[in-house]
């Protein structure tokens, strides 16, 4: 079915070389970790270059490199442009990162904030949403690894998925957030150079006119500016991205880990660097019709087109870029989800008197367990990447208002936040199943706003930010 452009031997060689590189880096950097702060938050002392690189690399993921082409293939030029609006999430998180660091300089997770700001019930609802999203993202990353290897080399989906999960779990386990951030820096350089090379090769190999004529003839809706589903998708994707970043501990852990006054600048830089990447990644999908490609599953279109037009050397570059992008996100997500489970579930619910040393050890077990659980859930390839990812949109978009209003406004209340998260999620899921994946986050966000504002204002409460306990060391 797949015309492999990278030989299985070369694919395995790349996986082994880069896998060993990341694992060695993880081991080397992990030797410096002595405390829970070191392991979970890289000593809370990350500078601007590493901070910008890790934020950008984490956001360049299977979503960007493989789902952006898929959405372009399915929703046309609006799909491509809409995907790039994911940068707005990073840009808007920039001011929030400064605020988070200011009011919670000693915080560990996004859960810490929700618990202290809204109470235990809202915290638990938030944890369910957050963990559900984390698993959705982890599965999509594992699947993307398998699809990438399969599409470019013909090696089995299961082999590619297993190797990538094993590599990322190993170095995250060995090095903690310090290794994640350091490898993210190298991975960012690889991604940026690779994307520039791919863009040049694509422009040299495909004429714009040929591409336009071919798509116009065989897939006219892809070029239509009045493509209804794509119009609906535009702001859905923006809000989905905002929801992902605002609520996820992946980004909060970075806000805590970055040095004082660094977070805001780092997120602005990373957002601007990220913006063109999905456009480049998505654009190549439009050449599938002119190349006569038989695309079995829409999420394979990116690697397949790259392999076809760029030849073996181009496909090797694509392979390395996507592998780096996957690794840079998978490691971050493993580390941040492990922190959330350790801090909010283990220490918050199961063993409240657990020492830092015990949590440090427990966190390592959790990383292994997460890697294993992700592997099991990736074994049956249940759906396409976009469908899986946007299913979680209904969940995460419901958390946007509780986070924003909770960080800045005294009138936001716990019951308002609970209703917003539950009501938003349910309505988003309803929209997902009854209209399409491209409106789930939008509907969730709208309902969540109504519930958050109306219930909070009815309660007429005034929260005192100075009472946030985690900042006083009462975790």
């Amino acid at each position: 079915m797949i015309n492999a452009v990278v030989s299985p031997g070369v694919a395995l060689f790349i996986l082994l070389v880069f896998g060993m590189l990341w694992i060695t880096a993880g081991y080397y950097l992990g030797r410096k970790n002595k405390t829970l702060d070191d392991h979970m938050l890289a000593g809370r002392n990350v500078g601007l270059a590493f901070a910008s690189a890790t934020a950008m690399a984490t956001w360049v993921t299977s979503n960007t490199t493989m789902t952006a082409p898929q959405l372009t293939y399915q929703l046309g030029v609006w799909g491509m442009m809409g995907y790039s609006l994911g940068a707005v999430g990073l840009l808007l998180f920039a001011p929030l990162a400064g605020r988070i660091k200011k009011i919670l300089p000693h915080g560990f997770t996004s859960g810490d904030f929700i618990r202290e700001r809204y109470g235990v019930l809202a915290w638990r609802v938030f944890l369910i949403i957050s963990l559900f999203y984390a698993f959705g993202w982890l599965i999509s990353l594992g699947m993307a690894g398998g699809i990438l290897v399969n599409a470019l080399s013909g090696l089995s989906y299961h082999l590619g998925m297993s190797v990538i999960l094993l590599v990322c779990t190993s170095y995250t386990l060995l090095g903690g957030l310090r290794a994640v951030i350091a490898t993210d820096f190298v991975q960012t350089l690889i991604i940026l150079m690779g994307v520039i090379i791919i863009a040049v090769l694509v422009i040299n190999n495909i004429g714009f006119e040929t591409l336009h004529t071919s798509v116009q003839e065989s897939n006219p809706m892809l070029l239509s500016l009045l493509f209804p589903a794509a119009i609906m998708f535009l702001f859905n994707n923006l809000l989905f991205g905002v929801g992902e970043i605002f609520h996820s501990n992946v980004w909060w852990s970075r806000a805590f880990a970055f040095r004082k006054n660094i977070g805001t600048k780092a997120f602005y830089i990373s957002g601007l660097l990220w913006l063109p990447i999905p456009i480049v990644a998505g654009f190549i999908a439009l050449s599938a019709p002119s190349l006569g490609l038989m695309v079995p599953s829409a999420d394979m279109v990116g690697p397949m087109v790259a392999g076809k037009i760029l030849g073996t050397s181009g496909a090797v570059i694509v392979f390395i870029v996507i592998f780096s992008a996957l690794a840079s996100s998978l490691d971050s997500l493993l580390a941040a989800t492990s922190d959330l489970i350790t801090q909010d579930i283990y220490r918050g619910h199961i063993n409240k008197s657990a020492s830092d040393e015990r949590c440090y050890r427990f966190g390592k077990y959790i990383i292994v367990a997460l890697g294993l659980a992700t592997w099991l859930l990736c074994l049956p390839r249940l759906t396409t990447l976009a469908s899986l990812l946007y299913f979680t949109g209904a969940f995460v978009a419901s958390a946007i208002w509780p986070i924003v209003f909770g960080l800045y406004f005294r009138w936001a209340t716990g019951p308002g936040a609970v209703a917003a998260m539950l009501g938003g999620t349910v309505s988003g899921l309803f929209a997902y199943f009854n209209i399409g994946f491209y409106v789930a986050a939008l509907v969730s966000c709208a309902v969540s706003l109504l519930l958050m504002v109306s219930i909070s204002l009815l309660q007429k409460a005034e929260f005192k930010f100075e009472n946030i306990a985690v900042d006083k060391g009462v975790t």
Partner: protein
Amino acid sequence: MQTRVCTVSWLVFLLTVSSSCIAEIRLSSDSDISPEGYFVLSWQSDAGRPLTLEQSQTETFNDIKTYILPAEGSITLTGFVDGNYFFRISSDVEISNTVEVLVSHHALSRAFSFFFLGLLLFFILLTAIFIGHSRVGLQND
């Protein structure tokens, strides 16, 4: 009587054989109606020969577009405008069942309703962050 039984048995045999030949290539779609203009066609064939997917907007396949396919798998087709689309797969000796997919995009009024709702939410979000951040900044000053 015996001749009639033999004839009937022979006819039943022929029908069974011919139906199994027709069923040798099975084509299916993941949806009968597509509001997004994309859908997935899947097929299975025992033939082991290259196959041709035929696409037409008429049930009689008067004006066809073709794709060369492997013996087994699926294909994601995309970018269709509103209309009825008919698909079947042929090999040297046989033709599959016909699959019909109706592409009926969402109404533009619905699409723009969601678009403007999204735009409104985005402006509220920007305003909330701007006001919140300004107030916090003033308090700190």
